[in-house]
């Protein structure tokens, strides 16, 4: 555990040395400040005009939750895009000739190195997301006096989505020893494949008449991580305090992540450097 922790800490150190993470933090700070400015100019009286004063606080709570979601949903997606970009080089950097030789000459097992890198990348993104989401939440909560705590669970759902995509980057990073393939596949799944499969199965399901096509869509739907659902319905439901109604996307994505990490460890364990 000690070795994993050391690798994790130095991965965070590596992240902090990269300008993209400073940009990431700067962007989050800017979003929090802008939120503060925008919500400050909103007029309470105007927002609840025509509503029975008895329900004022309830209406304000709903308004607060809606504003939080409107602000956070695109920002969380942007954060994920930045997180993929900024963590893509962690594994290739570790595998660089001259660096990996040194690491493998230490009393650290290969799986420990890989888990340390995974945990380090995950924690960096978790910290950034916590800063952004908690910051926006706090500004709106203080302004409206509505402390919608379930909203903070967005941190978990977005971080989990990142962890799933990061596992792909780790696997492809180990296989190719470069960052491009992992980054491209992660973006492809996040931006194209998962939304397409989700739409194909849910919204467009009734328009697809071919059983073979339905079977193919189902097959890929179940094995590909469901980032569209994780960042869509699941995140929104969690933010609104409704909990998770359908665990299938979470469980199958988790299984994918576990399989990707296990396979990455298997390949890393056998690889010559």
């Amino acid at each position, binding site marked *: 555990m000690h070795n994993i922790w*050391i690798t994790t800490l130095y991965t965070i150190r590596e992240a902090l040395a990269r300008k993209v993470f400073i940009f990431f933090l700067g962007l989050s700070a800017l979003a929090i400040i802008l939120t503060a400015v925008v919500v400050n100019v909103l007029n309470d009286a105007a927002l609840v005009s025509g509503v029975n004063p008895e329900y004022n606080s309830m209406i304000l709570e709903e308004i607060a939750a809606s504003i939080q979601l409107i602000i956070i949903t695109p920002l969380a997606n942007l954060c994920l895009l930045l997180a993929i970009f900024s963590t893509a080089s962690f594994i290739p950097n570790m595998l660089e000739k001259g660096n990996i030789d040194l690491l493998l000459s230490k009393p650290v097992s290969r799986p420990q190195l890989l888990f340390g890198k995974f945990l380090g990348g995950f924690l960096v993104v978790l910290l950034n997301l916590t800063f952004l989401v908690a910051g926006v939440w706090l500004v709106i909560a203080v302004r409206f006096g509505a402390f919608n705590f379930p909203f903070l669970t967005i941190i978990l759902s977005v971080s989990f989505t990142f962890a799933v995509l990061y596992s792909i980057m780790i696997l492809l990073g180990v296989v190719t020893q470069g960052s491009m393939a992992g980054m491209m596949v992660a973006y492809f799944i996040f931006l194209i494949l998962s939304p397409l499969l989700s739409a194909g199965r849910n919204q467009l399901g009734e328009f697809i008449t071919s059983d073979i096509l339905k079977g193919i869509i189902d097959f890929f739907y179940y094995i590909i991580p469901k980032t569209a659902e994780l960042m869509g319905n699941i995140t929104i439901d969690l933010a609104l305090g409704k909990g998770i109604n359908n665990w299938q996307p979470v469980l199958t994505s988790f299984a994918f992540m576990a399989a990707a990490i296990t396979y990455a460890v298997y390949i890393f364990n056998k690889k010559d450097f």
Partner: protein
Amino acid sequence: MKAVETKGLTKIYSSSFGRKKVQALSDFNLDVEAGLIFGLLGPNGAGKTTLIKLLLGITFPTTGSAKILETDASDYKIKSKIGYLPENHKYPPYLKGEEVLKYFGKLSGVKGEYLDRKIDELLSIVKLSQWKKTKVKNYSKGMMQRLGLAQAMINDPDLIFLDEPTDGVDPVGRKEIRDILLELKNKGKTIFLNSHLLSEVELITDRVGILNKGKMLREGTVNELTLKKEEYKIVVENNLSSESVFNSSAFTKISDGSYSVKVTDLKELNKIIDQIRISGNLIKEILPMKSTLEEMFISLINEAEK
């Protein structure tokens, strides 16, 4: 105790899809006793770095076995007793000199105040104390090598592998590194040195192995390897004049009163000595002839290439 032991170690690298195969090491056997400085020599591509990588578990053998400090090389825990300075090592460029040592020290299992003391001590030994707060991306090649050496010693290892440790280091720095290595040897550490700087290897190693195309050509002490068999240097008071002596064997004049002589055996050498003494000349010195390590190395490699 054996610090390094390999049996039938073979490594074949395959290119993508296994189309091209390169045999880096072939049925390689080696024993290195603890407490020695062992120098492994060989031309580029001989398999020197591959051997170290196999011993450290960085690369896996195709067949055969390797042990370090009498433990299977695949057991990563034994590396807490190992130090390694790879060729063309890279450190995280955003770390400062002392942070690099702290990082690798922690990974080696060294902790707390002992680690801090060790870092200061090693930086002082490699003369980098005043650069400890400087990021390593600003270090010169020589400074990187010295930091690498400190890194290899951070866990007070029993066995240290050094791959071209003096690469890019100036002559004064080389001498300092040699002194550090000798000091380590005096402390009972085993040093496994890969180098193509033959003169340096000659100066500090106890035993030398010569590797070419994945095979050990020769192994022994520097003395054993550089000794020219049945060739002696004879120094006499006056120049030799006797025709019979010159005709009896392969005599070559080196300088006034100094000759080299090739004989078939000791009997022939003694016969020559007798003849010189009968002629009334006085013998000052008889020494076995030696070549330099470089001469021996080049002739051995050339022979192997034929």
